[in-house]
């Protein structure tokens, strides 16, 4: 975690109301991993008292740049779109815990709903660099909200579902999952809560439905990894990146919690934003 300046390099509206911005922030991305996020201060200090958390969408260590992808939903996010290349802002990061990919996983299934793309986008790069095969299932309301394939690496197999059938599969993106879950060694998802809930249900019943062993578990040997540890998450089939209204983003205020399967609510900013699906209580309302 570092507090450092970031200089806007490029800013463009890639979809209606959705922006992709590139910042030069070498201090922030040093050591950062896919799934982590940055907490950024909007400039109108008098009216906007909170920072905004953004997933690190992509990172380029060679140029020291990162990108963030966001939708304009209020004055804070709108403020960022007024910035011009060369403008400087301040970032706190990298924050949170990353996706944990098992070294033996060859086939990764990524599932993104809408702006959830920003949550898993950096994992595509990391996985492809690691020589893995990536299938990315993406769900949106209509064709005009579909993330442009030109912004994805060529190696990714990109499958789209739209609610109105205007592009790709007609229906929810979760309906595409059964087709790929036998192929996948691990799955990683980010998106609306109902989508994640449906995926968690699929993952929980996967073993029975497909008759596959849980990844990486030694037969009768080895200590079980502590729930929530990186080792335990590596062995989980499904990891999800969660979203929540956030205050401090460092674990101090307990504003951004989600219900845990066992124990007190867990902090999205500290224990998350990435969780193994079985760590969370999906039945509860929050």
């Amino acid at each position, binding site marked *: 975690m570092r507090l450092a300046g970031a200089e806007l390099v490029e800013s463009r509206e890639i979809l209606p109301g959705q922006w992709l911005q590139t910042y030069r922030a070498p201090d922030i991305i040093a050591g950062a991993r896919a799934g982590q996020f940055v907490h950024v201060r909007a400039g109108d200090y008098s009216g906007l008292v909170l920072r905004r958390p953004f997933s690190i969408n992509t990172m380029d260590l060679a140029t020291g740049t990162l990108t963030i992808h966001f939708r304009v939903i209020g004055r804070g996010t709108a403020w960022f779109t007024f910035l011009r290349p060369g403008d400087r802002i301040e970032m*706190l990061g990298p924050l949170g815990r990353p996706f944990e990919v098992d070294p033996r996983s060859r086939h990764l299934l990524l599932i993104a709903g809408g702006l959830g793309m920003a949550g898993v986008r950096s994992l595509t790069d990391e996985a492809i660099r690691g020589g893995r095969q990536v299938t990315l299932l993406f769900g949106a309301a209509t064709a005009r909200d579909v993330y442009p394939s030109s912004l994805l690496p060529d190696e990714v197999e990109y499958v789209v579902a739209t609610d109105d059938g205007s592009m790709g599969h007609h229906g929810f993106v979760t309906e595409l999952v059964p087709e790929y879950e036998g192929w996948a060694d691990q799955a990683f998802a980010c998106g609306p809560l109902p989508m994640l809930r449906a995926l968690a249900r699929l993952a929980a019943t996967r073993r029975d439905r497909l008759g596959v062993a849980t990844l990486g578990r030694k037969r009768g040997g080895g200590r079980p990894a502590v729930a929530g540890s990186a080792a335990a998450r590596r062995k989980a089939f499904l990891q999800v990146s969660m979203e929540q209204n956030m205050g401090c983003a460092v674990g101090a205020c307990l504003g951004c919690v989600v219900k845990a399967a066992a124990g007190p609510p867990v902090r999205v900013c500290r224990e998350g934003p990435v969780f193994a699906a079985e760590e969370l209580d999906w039945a509860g309302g929050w």
Partner: protein
Amino acid sequence: MKARRRVVTASGAAVPAKRRPTVRRIKPAIVPVTRRDGPTGGQLTGHAAGATSVRATGPAEGPSPAAAPIHEVDLGVDLGRGLVLRNPVLVASGTFGYGIEYGDVVDVQRLGAICCKGTTLRARSGNPTPRVTETPGGMLNSIGLQNPGVDAVVEKYASTWAGWQVPVIVNVAGESIADYVEVVRRLEGVPGIAGIELNISCPNVGKGGLQFAIDAEAAGAVTAAVRRATDLPLLVKLSPNVADVRPIARAIEDAGADALTAINTLSGIAVGPTRERPLLGNVFGGLSGPAIKPVALKVVYEVAQTVDIPIVGIGGVTELADVLDFLAVGAVAVQVGTAIFADPTLPVRLIDELGAECRRRGLDSHRALIGTALPKRATATSARGAEYRP
């Protein structure tokens, strides 16, 4: 150990005169108003309480600041019962966790003190989400006192705190007087715990859910009970959600609190984007941030004229001018809360800026800045809310 202390009733009838601290007069007895504006400024020698020694020096007298610059500025603050802070900038409960979360980003040892997350007797899992939302010039929160319980807090953090230079004040909350007392008993004598701050803006389950903080009798009773249970320095945090805060402040002072914190959050709600229900999971939240600063200043202004114990001002501090405002209306120190979220390094920077401001004005301490905006009084003794006596 506890028996030797006198029982102080909530009504304040049996307040022993000796309980009054001897050196902690926060309001200058005579405020050198008009003549302070000379090039040398007023020279407040020592504590403002030394009424006889306070006088303004004319331009012809005394050294000019330019000729004899003061390098060392004493920003120390005495909150009573041995709780002496190196500087008057604290971090507010709930915004700084247990002091470890900001890691390397903040030099916590430089802070005046850390007020840790609200701590209860048993572990609490808190309120449903969303728990926080931004509002114009502020934020609403309804965390619901999520914390692992006092025993876990002591076990996890006290040994770390004991090694720190910065005092850690444990913020204590409860649903009954017995709860508060039990939490405080378990903090008593633990190395690393420098003081207690009572959050009395909690529903009193024994009194039909009425908050302690909105009733003078209940506020006094809980303070008195905690006072009997501990020798630790005791701060009590006032709620602004009352018609008149003065009788409550008085009751808390009479019950033996060493200092007051003013203010806690204001109650409010936000509406969800679909307009189908309030936004926060708990419906109601506490408003904090710059939006509440005028309210906080008003409470400090009123309470400073009502009690003689020190007041720690809190509410919307985001820059040095805010610190100076709180000092001017009678606070001896300030807490920084919501602003930390946007700018974690702010509290430490404020310490430096306050020191620089004192140097610029030729002051050897920030004490001369305290209470300058309060109504001028001819005598050293305050009326202490005499109008509320029966």
